[in-house]
Each structure stands twice: as C-alpha cells, then as structure tokens.
C-alpha cells in the first residue's frame, strides 16, 4: 500500500502521486514517511524531498521550507517554494545565500536578543545552503 504524496506550492500543485516512501526534510532531521505513519504536522526546513519507488529514489525535489501534514494514508507538503533538483539554478542559490547572510548579519547588528527573528534569518541561510547543495547534486 503506497502513501499518497502531494507537494503544493502557493502558486500551483506540483506533484500528486502515490509513492512507496517519501523522505522529507523536517525541522529536526530528515523524516521518512511510510504508509501507516502516525498523524503529524511538521515544520520543514530547506532541503530536498526524495521519492522512493520500488526501492530506488525516483525523484528529488528541492523545497525552500514549509509545512507537511502526515496521516496514515497521505503526506501533504505545503512548500514555500519547490523545484525538481535538476532545475535549481546555482547562481540563484548563491545570490540567495549572500542575501540571507546579509540579512542575518543585519539582524545581529540590529537586535541580538530577538531570538525568533534570528531563528528565521538562520532558517533562510539554511534554506539557501540546501538550495546550493541541490544545485550541485548530480
């Protein structure tokens, strides 16, 4: 019995098909979703979603962050932005990383004590790094 995976970004439905297993980049580590998984709502960090079908990775998608809802039958990923890894542009990733690092530095300079804002800025850096990794991956 497969798990129905759906990946949606605000602008469109990217993918909707049953897979054997999906590995999603949850905020506290990669999480494999198999059929019958306990119901969960998780926060995603920037990373790649890997789709497993008949024992192999058949597709990889980069997500910039977002949320996922897991139930025993399905896994719904609400991505802030999602792209097949092959389409990730390295130049764009680098530009975004530079921007995120600048934003973080600005936040540190402005207010070191605002932890949620710092976390958010750090999450942006991580997301940009994951994008860069996705661009470099074969």
């Amino acid at each position, binding site marked *: 019995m497969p798990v129905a995976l759906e990946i949606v970004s605000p602008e469109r*439905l990217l993918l909707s098909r049953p897979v054997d297993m999906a590995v999603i980049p949850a905020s506290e580590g990669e999480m494999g979703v198999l059929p019958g998984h306990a119901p969960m709502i998780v926060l995603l960090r920037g990373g790649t979603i890997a789709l497993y079908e008949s024992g192999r990775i058949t597709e990889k998608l980069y997500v910039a962050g977002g949320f996922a809802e897991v139930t025993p039958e399905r896994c719904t990923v609400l991505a802030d932005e999602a792209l097949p890894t092959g389409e990730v542009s390295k130049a764009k990733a680098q530009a975004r990383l530079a921007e995120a690092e600048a934003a973080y530095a600005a936040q540190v300079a402005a207010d070191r004590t605002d932890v949620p804002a710092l976390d958010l800025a750090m999450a942006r850096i991580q997301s940009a790094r994951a994008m860069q990794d996705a661009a470099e991956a074969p």
Partner: protein
Amino acid sequence: MPSLKALRVRINSVKSTQKITSAMKMVAASKLRRAQAQAEAARPYAERMERMLAALGASAAGSPTAPRILVGTGADKVHLLIVVTADHGLCGAFNASVGRAARSRVRELEAQGKTVRILAVGRKGRDFLRREFADRIEGDITFAGRKRIEFADAQGIAERISALLNAGSFDVCSVIYNRFVSVIAQVTTETRLIPAPLPETAAAPAGGVAASYEFEPDEETILARLLPQNLAIQVYRTLLESAAGEQGARMTAMDNATRNAGDMIKRLTLNYNRARQANITRELIEIISGAEAL
C-alpha cells in the same frame, strides 16, 4: 443637418473606436483565462493550509499566549481596511463599486467612533480614496505594468500588515475587494483577515482530529510560521480574485462598448445615406426645374 463629409468623418472615427474596444475585449478575454487558471492553481495550497490551520488553530485560539495575528490585539478601536482595486480603468463599475463600498464602510466605522486606516492596493482605488480620505491612507501598493501577480507580491503585503500589527497600529484588519463570481458578475465583498476567522472544525468527531496529531517541533512554533503564511495566502487569493474579476468586468464593458459603437455606426450610416439621397434629389430637382425654365 451635418454635411456629408462631417458624417463620414464621424463614422470612421466610431469605426476605429469599435476596433479598439473589440481588440480590448479579446485581450481581456485571454487575460481572464490566464487569471482564472492562476486562481485555480492557487486553490490546492489554500485548501490544505485551511485543513492544517483547523487542526492547529482551534486549540491555540483559547490560550492566553495565542499569537496576535490569530486573535488580534483584543481591542476594536483602530480598523485597517485594505482596498483592492485595479490599476487600470475601462472596466465598467469595477473600481467604483469597491470605492463606494470602502467609503460607506469608512463612514460607518467612524460613526461608531472608530479610527480607520486605509491601505490601498491598486492605483484606481488609491486615487478614488485620496480625494476624501487622504489623511487616513497608510500607504498604497500598485502592480501597474506587471504581467502577473506573484506570490511574493502577496507576501510583501502580508509582511507590511504584520509589521503594522506588531507596531500596534491597528486592531482589526479587513479587506474589501471584488470577488469573482462569473465573467459578468463580480461581488464586492469584505473579508476579515485579523483576527483570523478560523475554519470550522465542526465536522471533526468528538475528541477531534486536532487532538490526534503530533507536532514537530511544537504547536506554537508551527503556528507562528503558519499564520503569516496563511495571511499571505489570503491576500494572494484576494489579489487573484480581484485580477480575474477585473478582466471579467473589462470584457463585459468592452463588449458593451463594441455593441454601442455598432449601433452608433448603424445610425450614422442611415443618416449619411439619407443625407446623400436628399442631396441627389435636390440636385435632380434643380436640374429638372432648370430645364423646365428654359
């Protein structure tokens, strides 16, 4: 009676107007299709977001530490109205009806002794409201010259709203826009954004779906990220509805204009032919009576 030449000029000018309006109608029709497709594509995300929010929000709304974006500031003193209109005219009563609705809302709220701030999205609404409520306008946003509305645009607006909320400059936020019902019908609607209206969870069985979910990292952190995203989605949906409605309204308006121009051409052509016939008759009479006089 205008001269033949004057009539000819008139007919030609109306004909070229008709060409323009019918071309504009075609353009609006194709833009409408695109706008509808975009709105359609945005729907799955919004639906799933709603489902997650229903699971999360119900429990958080009751707690005293609930985020502001969900429950508001608790007061009901300052209202922020987001007025969404088009950047361009020539679309019938589309902009005027939003403007009118906004105006009567402002008056109503002020009659109740509340303060109103306005965030105008779209050039037409800004110009309309500036005439009367210039001092209440918080800011304006325009997408003029843009091919399509991106999600990032909506996020920009949502961030602005959040910043205002965190600065405590309003208590309640709602948006006035034209909801797209069909190509010929757009309904001016007011929707509340903050405090966020929670989707109904009545369908959930006792004990609730909400209770059965596990959360990672934890409910509050997820909610803190989910709510701004939800706000952005709401704004995005509004913008798309309004964009589709604008094209629908323009299509109808241009269709009417084309038809009116057709009627006018018919009338002018009739006048032209009559005048021509009258001229010929007069000339004949002149010739005949001239010949008879000889």
